């Protein structure tokens, strides 16, 4: 590769990175400036410790921070433990495909469904009342919005454990699992210990970044916390949202300080995770060195069921409520049925169209940029790829509000374009992660053969590489769409209230809307990405039905 080409490729990569990261970095910078008392629009210029002092004086702040660390940390740890427990049983099994709805559904949709399942008035209580419980009114139990955040932890785990399981299964697919297991078993290790000591640690490098993403998400999530989390006080991200949205201008600067504190919290948690990782490695090494063969017994499917059953119940509860007419407590089924929630009066189909449109646009942009990125990629790009995961680690509260202020400053209206640009920051890293592996594993002989018959670089890409890579491209598009459809805070702040997606509406309706309407929004929010995913899985087979080698393994 010539120096000129290297310089060109570096410049192009920088441009892509800047385009994708610009919203996050600009938002972060404005938030930082505001937290230091700097907001020229209001005639304030920092630095000034006032916002931090006022933040410190807020009632319930310490409790909110403690709750955030507890719920986020517990949810991430539990998700990881469940994923490790479930992966051995699901490895090589078709049951793993059932993970798709859980991975595709937005957090908010799953959280609404979980609330509809376990709330005191929820489906679970109805199924067992009054015959088993004696309840003819809902019990006065805080099963959602509980002060300890247990419902929030459960809601996060329902979504994150399947995600980590999926990542783990993908990593396992790249490993000689049977050989490693056989070797460990031959040395006398029980099946569980063989997985724990020989197979799973080898997958760890592929799981580390996703675990950090899960940890960052669980600490910073706004939408599940709004739906399932504690209320007096709520977690820090919800408190931050309240200060920004409730709108007293006096709380904007302390809100920015809270957003920065949130970012510091995530950074501290990731450092904690890295520390825990070292301890865990040392323990594994010690167990191996001791020659501890572990207890006998096969890995079971219990862990998978712990997640799958409540999730199935959540979707069933949403489906029932969305077609309910009157549904008095404690009836297990609606007394009358109604399709009204699925009508147009509440904007369901408009929100679905907006979700689909924004998703399609951000995915198309992300795919184009990712292909450009990989096409130009040298060794340089691999290091830069890690940096592109930044938007997945930085808390949304830490940049979304700052970004809204920045947009207003430069005279850009909130609306579709701003929302698509914001979504791109989240969609791009996922698309890149999905595409990078298959791209680099691509058989270069095909490209050489095309070059030999005179195809130029553009034709080699368009006529050879992309068609052959149809399956990973479809998977990347489906994953990207799910990511876009699940965005809550960026859509809310960058859309300025004008852009309503299924997710933003489901969250708004969850705690204070008509249950039937909320259920219809939640269910459709979950169904849309899953439908896109199923289509993406079926598409390569349909397009290449007469090209057996191109169909890829489904």
């Amino acid at each position, binding site marked *: 590769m010539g120096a000129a080409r290297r310089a060109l490729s570096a410049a192009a990569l920088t441009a892509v990175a800047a385009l994708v990261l610009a919203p996050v970095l600009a938002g972060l910078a404005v938030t930082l400036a505001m937290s230091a008392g700097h907001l020229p*629009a209001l005639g304030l210029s920092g630095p000034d410790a006032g916002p931090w002092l006022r933040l410190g004086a807020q009632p319930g702040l310490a409790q909110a921070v403690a709750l955030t660390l507890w719920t986020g940390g517990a949810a991430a740890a539990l998700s990881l433990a469940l994923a490790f427990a479930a992966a051995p049983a699901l490895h090589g099994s078709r049951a793993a495909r059932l993970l798709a709805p859980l991975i595709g559904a937005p957090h908010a949709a799953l959280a609404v469904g979980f609330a509809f399942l376990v709330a005191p008035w929820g489906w679970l209580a109805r199924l067992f009342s009054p015959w088993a419980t004696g309840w003819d009114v809902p019990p006065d139990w805080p099963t959602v919005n509980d002060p300890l955040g247990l419902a929030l932890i459960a809601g996060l785990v329902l979504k994150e454990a399947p995600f980590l399981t999926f990542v783990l299964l993908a990593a396992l697919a790249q490993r000689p699992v049977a050989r490693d297991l056989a070797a460990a078993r031959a040395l006398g290790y029980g099946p569980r210990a063989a997985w724990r000591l020989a197979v799973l640690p080898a997958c760890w490098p592929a799981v580390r970044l996703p675990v950090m993403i899960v940890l960052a998400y669980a600490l910073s999530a706004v939408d599940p916390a709004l739906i399932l989390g504690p209320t007096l006080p709520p977690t820090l991200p919800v408190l931050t949202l309240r200060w920004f949205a409730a709108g007293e201008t006096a709380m904007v600067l302390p809100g920015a300080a809270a957003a920065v504190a949130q970012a510091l919290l995530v950074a501290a948690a990731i450092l904690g995770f890295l520390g825990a990782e070292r301890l865990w490695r040392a323990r594994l090494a010690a167990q191996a060195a001791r020659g501890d063969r572990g207890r006998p017994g096969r890995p079971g499917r219990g862990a998978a069921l712990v997640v799958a059953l409540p999730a199935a119940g959540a979707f069933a509860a949403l489906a029932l409520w969305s077609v309910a007419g009157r549904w*008095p407590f404690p009836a297990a089924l609606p007394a009358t049925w109604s399709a009204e929630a699925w009508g147009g*009066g509440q904007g369901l189909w408009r929100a679905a169209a907006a979700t689909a449109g924004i998703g399609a646009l951000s995915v198309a942009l992300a795919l184009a940029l990712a292909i450009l990125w990989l096409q130009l990629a040298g060794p340089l790009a691999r290091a830069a790829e890690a940096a592109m995961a930044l938007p997945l680690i930085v808390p949304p509260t830490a940049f979304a509000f700052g970004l809204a202020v920045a947009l207003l400053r430069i005279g850009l209206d909130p609306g579709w374009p701003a929302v698509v640009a914001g979504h791109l920051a989240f969609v791009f890293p996922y698309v890149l992660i999905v595409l990078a592996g298959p791209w680099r594993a691509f058989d270069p002989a095909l490209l050489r053969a095309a070059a030999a018959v005179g195809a130029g670089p553009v034709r080699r890409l368009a006529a050879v590489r992309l068609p052959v890579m149809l399956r990973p491209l479809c998977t990347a598009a489906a994953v990207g769409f799910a990511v876009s459809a699940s965005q809550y805070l960026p859509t809310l702040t960058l859309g300025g209230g*004008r852009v309503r997606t299924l997710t933003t509406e489901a969250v*708004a309706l969850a705690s204070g809307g008509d249950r039937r309407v909320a259920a219809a929004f939640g269910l459709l929010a979950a169904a849309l990405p899953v439908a896109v995913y199923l289509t993406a899985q079926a598409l390569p087979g349909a397009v290449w039905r007469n090209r057996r080698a191109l169909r890829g393994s489904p």
Partner: protein
Amino acid sequence: MRAVFALAALLALAAPATAGDWEDTLAAARGQTVWWHAWGGDPRTNAFIAEVAAEVQAAYGVQLEHVRLSDTAEAVNRVLAERAAGRDAGGAVDLIWINGPNFAAMKAAGLLHCGFVAQLPNARFVDLGPGAAAATDFTLPTEGCESPWRLARFVLFHDPARVADPPSSMAALADWAAANPGRLTHPDAANFMGATFLKQALVELAPDRDVLALPPTDAAWAVATAPLWDWYDRLRPNLWRAGRQFPENETALIQMLGDGAVDFAMAFDPAAAANAVIRGVLPDTVRTVAFPGGTLGNVSFVAIPYNASARAGAMVVANHLLDPAVQARAQDIRVLGAYSVLDPARLDAPARAAFDALPGHPALPTLDALGPTLPEPHPGWMTRLAEEWARRVAR
């Protein structure tokens, strides 16, 4: 540029509306998109706004977009932020469903386009005389800065199958809660419904109601709210979840009544109970409680921010909302049940007949049955009530 606008507004205020002016407004409005920022917590109101959007599109070529708010303060802040950023034209908000403290704040900060109500042809059906309900918002004169569109009344409702003899005053409600702990709650006071519940108690319990018409001074606040907090301290331990958790808004509370989790729900709309019965959220035995001492009432308005992008379109929508046929349909309990702001004396016979012919509903009280309308306190009281409540509850 702003000076020109201000001058134009002054001239408009001075000169009586003429048909020619309105023709100009209609012409300017055609093709405009009006972003109406309005509370989105009631499905039937949302559906009504969607109908209105279809009508103004068909009749005037105005595209109406409903931006659903969970709190009207969001729109106020948006306009505030725009002014802070120096965007004095081309703002994102064209029309706001507003009243009370939000109106007071916007009017005081000069964030509203004032004097437009007199230009609306349908304003002739409304009593806008000095002190009239439709020209007064929480004791403040509206001065043409907002146009009325529906009436609001505080109502409490219950299921007589569960509570045969409901309390008929806020004081009696605390006694009832003491006898039935855990069966009553109210929305979070950060929500307007929760704040209104406290305000109803304030008005009933205040030693001297007249001071409530003025901004709260520290001295007046201490005297007027002392009985309220005594009452609330007695009530709170007997609330649902011992007053440590509150439903987010009235919609959530109404659903709790439907589940039987509590025995009362409340709304700021006399038709709310009937609406919930029709939608199947409440059993059809539910009735509205009569308060012989009266309940708080006010008028809901629409206002146009000073920097609205589609001022003419917003005026067309405000005018359409005052159309006697639209008002009669809004008051129809099968549609919305929102009581009209029009003055019956100003309507012609067919229009009056349309209102008289509207059907009733067992859960829909007549305005007479609701007792006297208690006037809203000055907006300062509501703001301070919500803050003080948050302070007390966070402890």
